[in-house]
């Protein structure tokens, strides 16, 4: 067995995340735990060819890593500060069972997603510690400079230490407060991957797949309606990945997508998770969004879409999340259910709110409805307003195409 041995590679992929999570708990420090884990794997490479693979590889790795970590603590003479860690150093504690691994994974996730950390740091930390991406991979995936991202992670770990953010699963009473934050981070990770065309990524890391994997883990460890709902939402969105961009990377709207390219396996799994989510009460925002995605997923052709249901779902979502985006989406759904004029009336009401003035999607939606209503002059005006607000990229090119198409049709 060597460093490049596929067997070691597989063992690393299989066990490294849970070994890390447990070592962080035992050693009380991210950097120390990572070092200790690396040393444990190095020791495994050296010793296992002769001694054979132990019955419980992760337990062996944790014991070895723990010993190395404790040695480091002693050597650094921070013994007084870490007395509580050293007190247990010589205890022969039982091999960690599944429950311990799962608890430690949750601890790590909740710590990485702690609301006391800046949001960008939570995303970076989660990708680094939970998903095992290197700093370079995370930087590349988030389109940030590696040095900037590394600094962000260093500052986050410093805050965890200085402010005393505990390595803990929140108490049952606190979970309702803390779980949405974790889901939000996972969804952010998903959207980072979802909005970007795969071709633009230098390093081949699928953030969308990582987010789905994280949510799957979380669903197993913490069965909760909104966790299931988020998982359903992401799977349903992900099912359309091959249909939403053409070969040149240009946007194709939901209406125009080739539905035969939708991944039916993902849709099937997504709908199953949605069912599980709906079985639990109350129904939360992610579950509602997943329900909306499901209506689209079940329509074989765009014309089959049950827009009346979508309008009702957006109404329910607005009750829980009265945001401009939801209001806008509901107005568009009303237009699809009834007439463009009906949607335009709702948009006119929204227009009086300042927040929509600077929101390019508002103007784009308005333009689209004017276009459908046959009012090209107003459509043109609104497309131009949208273009004044949107930056370079697929969305801008899409709006430019729509505007040009108006000029062609008169």
């Amino acid at each position, binding site marked *: 067995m060597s460093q490049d041995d596929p067997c070691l590679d597989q063992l690393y992929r299989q066990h490294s995340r849970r070994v890390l999570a447990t070592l962080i708990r035992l050693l009380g420090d991210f950097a120390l735990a990572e070092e200790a884990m690396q040393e444990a794997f190095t020791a495994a490479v050296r010793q296992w060819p002769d001694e054979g693979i132990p019955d419980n590889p992760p337990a062996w790795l944790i014991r070895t890593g723990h010993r190395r970590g404790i040695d480091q603590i002693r050597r650094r003479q921070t013994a007084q500060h870490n007395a509580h860690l050293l007190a247990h150093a010589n205890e022969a504690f039982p091999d960690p069972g599944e429950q311990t691994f799962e608890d430690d994974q949750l601890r790590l996730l909740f710590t990485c997603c702690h609301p006391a950390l800046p949001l960008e740091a939570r995303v970076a930390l989660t990708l680094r510690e939970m998903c095992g991406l290197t700093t370079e991979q995370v930087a590349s995936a988030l389109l940030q400079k590696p040095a900037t991202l590394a600094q962000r992670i260093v500052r986050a770990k410093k805050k965890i230490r200085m*402010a*005393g*953010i505990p390595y803990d699963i929140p108490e049952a009473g606190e979970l309702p407060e803390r779980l949405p934050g974790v889901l939000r981070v996972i969804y952010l990770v998903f959207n980072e991957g979802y909005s970007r065309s795969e071709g633009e990524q230098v390093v081949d890391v699928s953030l969308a797949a990582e987010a789905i994997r994280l949510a799957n883990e979380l669903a197993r460890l913490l069965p909760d309606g909104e966790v299931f709902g988020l998982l359903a939402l992401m799977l349903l969105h992900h099912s359309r990945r091959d249909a939403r961009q053409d070969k040149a990377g240009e946007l194709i709207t939901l209406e125009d997508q080739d539905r035969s390219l939708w991944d039916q396996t993902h849709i099937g799994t997504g709908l199953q998770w949605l069912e599980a989510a709906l079985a639990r009460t109350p129904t939360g925002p992610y579950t509602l969004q997943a329900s909306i995605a499901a209506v689209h997923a079940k329509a074989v052709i765009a014309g089959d879409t049950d827009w009346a249901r979508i309008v009702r779902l957006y109404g329910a979502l607005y009750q829980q999340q009265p945001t401009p985006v939801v209001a806008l989406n509901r107005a568009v759904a009303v237009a699809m259910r009834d007439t463009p004029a009906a949607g335009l009336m709702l948009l006119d009401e929204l227009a009086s709110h300042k927040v929509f003035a600077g929101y390019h999607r508002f103007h784009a939606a308005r333009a689209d409805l004017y276009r459908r209503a046959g009012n090209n002059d107003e459509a043109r005006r609104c497309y131009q307003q949208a273009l004044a607000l949107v930056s370079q990229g697929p969305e801008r090119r899409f709006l430019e195409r729509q505007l040009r198409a108006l000029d062609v049709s008169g």
Partner: protein
Amino acid sequence: MKYVALVYYQESIINAMTEQAWHDLNQECIAGVERLTDQGNYVAGQALHPVESATTVRVRDEEVLISDGPFAETKEQLAGFYLLEARDLNEALQLASRIPPARFGTIEVRPVRELPPKD
């Protein structure tokens, strides 16, 4: 771990309160301190007079500069502080969330820095 909870709110909110509401708020805070003390979380704390009573001191080039008012004009003003003993940040945040002015103001929670031993 020790944490300071700095209590900020817009004084205009207090000024708009009725006498009874202000009295009730103070009673809530007193009861809160009792609870924190019983739980072993309360180390120290004080409510403060409004910012109009503040005076600022700076020493520059050995000159003592005194001016009227708080160190900066802010949307929310410092109204008081608590020095708390808590297991970790999560506990500190839970305690801070129960400080009555948290409902309409902002509580900043900051860990205490122990100074190194005297040389």
